[in-house]
């Protein structure tokens, strides 16, 4: 298990991390969420010793993380970190060697990952010749060729088309099923909700919400209400309603979990013909907005 405990980090006057703490369990996929500048990348860098926190510590399997522990980690930095003109296989072998594998083991690992990521036919291509999705696959192969026990990925889904997203998400699920702890940052909340078991939401350098996604949703005091009357969205005029504006499409309506559903249905029916009525735990997007901004209100 990775334990990030009370990390504090300043860049000049800017407090990038303010006592950031969370855990990543082996075999779990953790979505690391937060607005831009919330401290996600800094936290990831602290895990790999690429940023030195003023306070706090990072532990792996109960031991403070040092060089030896980091050999068991895989990292995909936000800058991506590949030579564009280098060939795919050569690149995977190179970083696998730097991560401690000998040449032949690195070659075998490269072959295995090229096959697993369906890149075998592009092994001798230069990275710059690949599509964005395939380049992202190479990034993942490089991060995982040395069979790490923890994988930390900074925005792995950024810029991918839906097919590539599906493929990468499937790969992360496979890794987790093999016992690998996966931590990745993303702004695609629906995707995180689908892929992750756990979520950590940070804002202004501190964790504002964390835990099992389903439990967080279920334990919320709010519920998402979706009612359509005469083909149009209906918003109840009762206490405790929160309307989350959407730029496109219908607004999200959140109500107290204890609201009287029969009463709501009756009120909706009085205004016209009810064609849709759903009452569900809030989505991860709702939880995120509530945690980071306090949510919208009517």
């Amino acid at each position: 298990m990775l334990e990030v405990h009370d990390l504090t980090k300043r860049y000049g006057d800017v407090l990038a991390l303010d006592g950031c703490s969370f855990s990543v369990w082996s075999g779990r996929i953790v979505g690391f969420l937060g607005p831009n500048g919330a401290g996600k990348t800094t936290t990831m860098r602290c895990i790999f010793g690429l940023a030195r926190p003023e306070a706090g510590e990072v532990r792996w399997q109960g031991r403070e993380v040092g060089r030896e522990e980091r050999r068991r980690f895989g990292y995909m930095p936000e800058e991506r970190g590949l030579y564009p003109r280098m060939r795919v296989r050569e690149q995977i072998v190179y970083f696998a060697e730097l991560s401690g594998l000998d040449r032949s083991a690195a070659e075998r690992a490269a072959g295995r990952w090229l096959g697993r990521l369906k890149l075998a036919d592009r092994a001798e291509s230069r990275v710059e010749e690949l599509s964005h999705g395939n380049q992202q696959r190479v990034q993942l192969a490089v991060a995982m060729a040395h069979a790490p026990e923890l994988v930390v990925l900074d925005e792995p889904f950024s810029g991918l088309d839906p097919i590539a997203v599906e493929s990468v998400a499937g790969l992360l699920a496979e890794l987790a099923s093999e016992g690998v702890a996966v931590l990745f940052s993303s702004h695609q909340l629906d995707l995180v909700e689908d892929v992750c078991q756990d979520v950590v939401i940070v804002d202004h350098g501190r964790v504002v919400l964390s835990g099992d996604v389903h439990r967080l949703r279920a334990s919320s005091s709010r519920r998402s209400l979706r009612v359509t009357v005469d083909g149009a969205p209906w918003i109840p005029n009762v206490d405790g309603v929160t309307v989350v504006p959407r730029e496109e499409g219908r607004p999200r309506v959140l109500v107290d979990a204890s609201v009287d559903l029969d009463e709501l249905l009756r009120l909706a029916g009085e205004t016209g013909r009810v064609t849709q009525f759903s009452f569900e735990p809030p989505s991860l997007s709702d939880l995120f907005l509530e945690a980071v901004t306090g949510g919208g209100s009517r």
Partner: protein
Amino acid sequence: MSKAVSIAGVNLRRVFRDRISLFFMVVFPFVIILMIGAMYGAGFEPTLGVVSRGSGALGADLVGRLERNEGIRVRAYDDRGSLTTAVERGQVEAGLVIPSGYDTRIRAGETVSLPYISRPAGSGQEAQLIVAAAVDRQAVVLRAARFAASEGVGSFDEALRTARAVDASFPRVEVRSSVAGSSVLSFNYGAAQELLLFVFLVSLSAASMLIESRRLGVSRRMLASPTGAATVVLGEGLGRFAIALFQGGLIVGVTLVVFGVDWGDPLATGAIVILFALVGTGAAMLMGSVLENAQQAGSFGVFFGLILAALGGCMVPLEIFPNTMRTIAHVTPHAWALDAFGDVLGRNGTVVDIWPQLAVLALYAAGLLSLAAVLFRRKLTA
């Protein structure tokens, strides 16, 4: 160390894949070789332009004497104007005008002056010595002939024939010169200056590759792997060091074989080139650790490369520096390397003789690489 070798291997492959880098890597040493060969090669002979139209038999005799001289090549020009232009453009090192009527005026007992044209710098001064010697030699024969004719031995022409015959059979006195110390006039020392200037400038170009690795995030990935900052800097530098060393060795080898430049004791020269290439690599890694982009590295590299070379005596020999400036010059590694070359080339020095200079160069290299590693890590882990 194996990680550093891996990084160096990748670095070299990156260079070899970049056609522009490859072009400069291969072409540049040969440009320098040609330059050193042309300027400092032992086979180099200055070319003297000569105008001798209408100068008569004695004018032709003087031209013949110049042509027979092994230290100079003679090229004929029609008039003084075209000769002056050729000197100005560097087509010939110097020019000599043998005026029209030279023969007649000499026979008439007149004093004739021979205009000599050269540029302020270059080997025109050397050619002037050769011209003066040839003119003196002819003057000796002419004076002897005139004396004989005045004593009634015969006509001037008969006396001239006799004087030439005597001159040809007369034993000659030759002056053999050797150079003590690293003289300003030493061609080999000049070649060493060029070599140091080039090796340092080429080494600095490695800075841009380290900056690119940083910019692409490859360096972060390396540090996260985990690979130490010192190993990354060492590996990134090692590849370029090998290239600089290869280029330096190529210049020494080819100028030695083709142009006969005397580089002295091979071990001592090798040690200087190796350590100086290492110093250049250290400076490049330092620049690559602190500068933000490749454009900055290019500009700073050329700027500092030239400034340090000038200050260190690679453009103007240290001998002509005032004492204070000579002391200041030794802030640069170039001055220490030139001191070492001075001992090796001027006094047949060996590695034992130049160990203090080699030690200073080694300290420079170690200091620069260590500082680069610290700043590189600080840059990426702030």
